[in-house]
């Protein structure tokens, strides 16, 4: 029974990591932008949920409202960042990491000054409190909700990439930017849209996180390192890799944690990933290109 409970815990952690990493794999995968402020976009999404609840009151309605709003808030922040800073730096990917880290610092302090240093709480709606009992197993409803949300996001993103003209453009730019541009795709516009979607997904992840923990200025920093590891281990440019890597990381963390302690588990997960990248430096799934790297 414990094993099944742990399996669920692992999948659930995996779905949280997936939500956090999904947008990242899009922006990192397409543009090679290492957006350290991604975690702060999540924080912005979480505070959106807090503000919406303050206005609306009802926990259920506000959660459903906050999800699209969080997407928009995260997306707009991303768009702003892209338009002001990142578009200058596509030729210097490592520098985007440092710039966005500076942005992350500032955003954290803004949150501290606007919402106050103490953490705030978002109430979960009644239909999400408690657990679903299956056999002797208690599956918390919030965790089931996040698992579903993650699946919905992945499916929606996959469909958008596969079946819409926009998706085709994005994939074309990911696979070969120059060729795409030569074929008449405006990579400038595509970059903006991609950044909007990727950052928007961070906002959604932030809203979802309010169901699990507290909302504070440093919410994002707890997830950013893990999220990047997911993207790196999954390989860039494909959702499939990110999904598998997030699930695997979640399961590893929860089973290591069960047999050892939370601290040791984290170290073990890191070591495993470094070792894994020895075997597959390009990550789990990678777009085959003719480049030398």
């Amino acid at each position: 029974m414990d094993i099944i409970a742990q399996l669920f815990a692992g999948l659930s952690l995996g779905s949280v990591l997936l939500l956090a990493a999904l947008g990242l794999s899009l922006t990192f995968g397409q543009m090679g932008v290492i957006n350290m402020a991604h975690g702060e976009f999540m924080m912005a999404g979480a505070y959106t949920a807090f503000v919406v609840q303050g206005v609306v009151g009802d926990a259920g309605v506000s959660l459903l409202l906050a999800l699209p709003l969080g997407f928009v808030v995260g997306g707009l922040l991303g768009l702003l960042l892209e338009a002001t800073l990142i578009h200058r730096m596509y030729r210097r990917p490592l520098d985007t990491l440092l710039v966005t880290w500076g942005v992350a610092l500032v955003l954290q302090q803004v949150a501290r000054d606007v919402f106050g240093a103490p953490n705030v709480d978002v109430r979960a709606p009644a239909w999400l409190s408690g657990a679903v009992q299956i056999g002797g197993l208690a599956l918390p409803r919030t965790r089931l909700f996040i698992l579903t949300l993650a699946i919905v996001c992945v499916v929606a993103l996959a469909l958008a990439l596969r079946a819409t003209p926009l998706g085709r453009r994005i994939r074309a730019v990911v696979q070969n930017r120059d060729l795409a541009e030569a074929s008449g795709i405006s990579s400038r516009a595509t970059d903006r849209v991609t950044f909007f979607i990727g950052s928007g997904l961070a906002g959604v992840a932030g809203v979802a996180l309010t169901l699990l923990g507290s909302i504070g200025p440093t919410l994002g920093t707890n997830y950013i390192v893990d999220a990047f590891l997911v993207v790196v281990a999954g390989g860039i440019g494909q959702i499939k890799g990110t999904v598998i890597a997030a699930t695997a990381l979640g399961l590893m963390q929860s089973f290591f944690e069960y047999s050892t302690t939370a601290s040791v588990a984290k170290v073990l997960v890191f070591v495993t990933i470094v070792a894994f990248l020895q075997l597959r430096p390009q990550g789990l799934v990678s777009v085959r290109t003719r480049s030398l790297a």
Partner: protein
Amino acid sequence: MRLRSTSPHGAMRLSTVSLAVLCVVGLSACGARVDGGSDTSASAESCVDTSGDTVKIGFLNSLSGTMAISEQTVHDSLQLAAKEINADGGVLGKELEIVSEDGQSEPTVFAEKASKLITSDCVAAVFGGWTSASRKAMLPVFESQDSLLFYPVQYEGLESSPNIFYTGATTNQQIVPALDYLVEQGAKSLFLVGSDYVFPRTANKIINAYAEAHGIEIVGEEYAPLGHTDFSTIVNKVRSADADAVFNTLNGDSNVAFFKEYNNAGMSADDMPVVSVSIAEEEVGGIGVENIEGQLTAWNYYQTVDSPENTAFVEAFKAEYGEDRPTSDPMEAAYTSLYLWKAMVEKADSFAVDDVVAAADGITYDAPEGKVVVNGENHHIAKTALIGKIGADGLIHTEWSSEEPIEPDPYLEGYDWADGLS
């Protein structure tokens, strides 16, 4: 690309210069060796200036970084106490002049700023610190400079520095009474959950010793890294262990994630109560009352304490900082610490550290929490232990009280079961 062959002479010259520097270092600067038996306390000459109408004191709290959440509140109540004291004529007729420094939630910065307050600003005493790490970092600074620190937070005990006054609870004033209470309630088994740092580890060591002597079974002991936010595995373990109660020494944000997970897994205060020692009124709002209502806490002060001193304190605090700001144990301990220092200075009729320390024993003060007495030997204060229950109003209400102030015993020397702990 053109590969240039280079002569190493330029660099050789540089290395020569550097070597020369090192030689100069080796020859010129040799101070006292520890085994030389030289007296070094002379270097810690105090520079405190008490000739004017004012006297400087230092507040050292984290105003930025992760601990700012908690330490800002302590800073606020220290400011309140200073304001009240100044309005009342100061200390020995001298107005308090506050030098405020930011510890940035980093032990290294605490050590640096403590040193600055003592040697550059020449303050008569410093008030602040929160985490054990910050206190441990400052301790050698205060001892080597022979200055005074007032530390306002409950902590893990096993310490008693001549240069620190501990105005929060030590273990026998918080953890031991909480265990006594649980035994009284018939608890036979406990699950221990804590953050991975010194306070929870030491607290749990004490709890284990206590449990062994009192026939309580410890069915699990789990640590989460600081800032850990995924508690499904730990809650799974708690669930399957099915203890009579959970003893919670988690710190900060982790509490929120833990209690949300705890409730979502279908557990409640009725079937498995959680006793927390790091959740005060300030934190209840962030965790969400609905997630934590009915759970227990162990402290020495609650905002709801019914006494004229506390009514005055709460009213003054709210008047200064707003109606929505609660008061909590560390805030009260910080507020009290400033008044205790004032009483010591006035009894000694001097700001000199040695005089103040000599006058400390037996100083009594009617604090918001009740009567407190300074123990001159171990520099802690006698405090009344209170077990509280978190109410729907977000405040904590006293469930059980030790009635009398408990004498501080940081090394638990008065408890047979604690032999061999220190």
